[in-house]
């Protein structure tokens, strides 16, 4: 029996376009099916008829006109082109978009710290203590941190943070370091609260306590690099806002209590009562003084940051030889390592930047492929 499928196969069979298996199948079927044999012969006749139609020649003048139009178009910059042929405004727009995207990425990558919001999440009681290298990036944020309004609180209460830092510095001459520290403290509007000097095993060392206004704290910590080699540095911040507010409230309560005692004293006439009230008044006054003292201390501590600087003279390698070969070798090694480290850091930066661009490039590639598809499909 002839079905649509067999008809399909017969047409391709006439063209010799069937594969081995299909052809064998059709031929087996033809041996038994009279209908299909007839259909095949009809199909063959039809194809012969259709193919007998003579090809048409292009008319006179066709080639000449094509040539004239081609010359109008002119010479095309050919295979060297690798960017899409877009109309002018599109080209400008896509170039602008590319520059914009790359610019945004560059800014994001080169920004020294993460988004500012990340640093806002410190709880009030938490004391942010940072040591070592990380401090370098944290230090610049210290001034705002110290005197910033508490977010989410309507009254603009000032943060009270006691900032302290311990820094060990190695210097060439302790006397020079002392002078420079004094200048640093004075330039920052602070002072040297304490200093001591000693010598152990012939190596002089000294310690200083600098008090500087909190807003200048970070700058002063950074400028210690200019004094000598910073061997150790730790920074500590203690948030005392709550304690401060609590002290103020307690002082207010005690003062109200004092007022009441005073009015009692006016009314009473008994000596024994007067004595008792007098005693209580003394106690309350003492407590008020002590609390205010504490508050003043906190206020002072949080207005002025405290830097403890330990200064030690560098130990000179005094070997008797003319040339200290070991030291030179050490310096060479240090220089070598530093260079390698810088190179690696550079490579890392490039790798990070490249990885950040991967999604953009992927998008661009997909867009480019789609564009090509679309353009080729239109041809």
């Amino acid at each position: 029996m002839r079905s649509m499928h067999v008809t399909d196969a017969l047409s391709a069979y006439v063209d010799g376009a069937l594969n081995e298996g299909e052809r064998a199948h059709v031929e087996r079927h033809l041996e038994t099916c009279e209908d299909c044999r007839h259909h095949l012969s009809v199909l063959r006749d039809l194809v012969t008829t259709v193919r007998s139609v003579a090809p048409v020649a292009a008319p006179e003048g066709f080639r000449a006109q094509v040539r004239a139009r081609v010359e109008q178009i002119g010479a095309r910059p050919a295979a060297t082109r690798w960017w899409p042929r877009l109309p002018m405004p599109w080209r400008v727009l896509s170039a602008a978009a590319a520059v914009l995207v790359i610019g945004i990425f560059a800014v994001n990558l080169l920004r020294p710290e993460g988004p500012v919001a990340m640093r806002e999440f410190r709880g009030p009681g938490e004391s942010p203590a940072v040591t070592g290298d990380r401090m370098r990036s944290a230090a610049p944020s210290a001034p705002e941190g110290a005197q910033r309004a508490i977010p989410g609180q309507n009254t603009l209460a000032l943060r009270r943070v006691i900032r302290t830092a311990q820094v060990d510095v190695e210097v060439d001459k302790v006397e020079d370091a002392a002078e420079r520290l004094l200048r640093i403290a004075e330039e920052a509007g602070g002072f040297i609260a304490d200093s001591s000097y000693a010598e152990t095993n012939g190596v002089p060392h000294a310690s200083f306590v600098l008090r500087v206004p909190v807003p200048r704290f970070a700058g002063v910590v950074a400028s210690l690099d200019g004094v000598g080699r910073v061997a150790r540095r730790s920074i500590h911040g203690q948030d005392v806002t709550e304690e401060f507010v609590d002290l103020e409230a307690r002082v207010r309560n005690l003062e109200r209590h004092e007022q009441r005692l005073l009015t009692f004293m006016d009314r009473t006439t008994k000596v024994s009562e007067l004595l008792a009230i007098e005693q209580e008044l003394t106690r309350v006054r003492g407590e008020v003084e002590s609390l205010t003292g504490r508050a003043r201390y906190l206020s002072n501590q949080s207005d002025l940051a405290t830097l403890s600087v330990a200064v030690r003279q560098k130990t000179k390698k005094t070997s008797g030889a003319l040339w200290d070969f070991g030291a030179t070798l050490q310096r060479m090694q240090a220089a070598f390592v530093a260079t390698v480290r810088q190179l690696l850091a550079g490579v890392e930066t490039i790798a990070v930047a490249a990885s950040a661009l991967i999604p953009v490039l992927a998008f661009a590639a997909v867009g480019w492929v789609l564009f090509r598809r679309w353009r080729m499909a239109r041809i």
Partner: protein
Amino acid sequence: MNDAELVARSQQGDTDAYDQLVGTYQHRIFSLAYRITGNREDAWDAAQEAFLKAYRNLYGFHGRAAFSTWLHRIAVNAALDVVRRRAAQPPVPLDVTLRSLDDPADEVMRSDLQQRVHRAIAALPVEQRVAIVLRDLQGLRYEEIAGVLRIPIGTVRSRISRGREMLRVMLADLAPASGEGRTA
């Protein structure tokens, strides 16, 4: 000089080289356009558009496919564009179409049989017409047609098959007369 060399030189902007390519392919491409569009004016437009489009996009041609396949693809699409444009326009009065078909200056159209076949092909649905023209008039193989139209080979097969079925019905009265010598 072969196609590849001419294409390479055309890509450099050598219009003489491209003119040679046009000379090689003009009849085949015009024929193709003529069978798809059905008349000479449209065929001229479509074929010319195809050659210009090919020239403009020559830099995008990397020789992955043969130049002739690529050119066929462009020409088929150009012809289909013309057909579609014609369809969107108000219908051309029948006598005008007929006049262009029955152009007395056209020697090819003298023969009655040729005219019958041409009209039958022109009456096929576009997809089947293109497949039949590429196969039986341009002599392309199934794989080449699949490449030109960017469709699977099975689709090529069924389009040709269905097109022939329709032609068989339309040309039923011709078949016995022309096929007598072959069936034996």
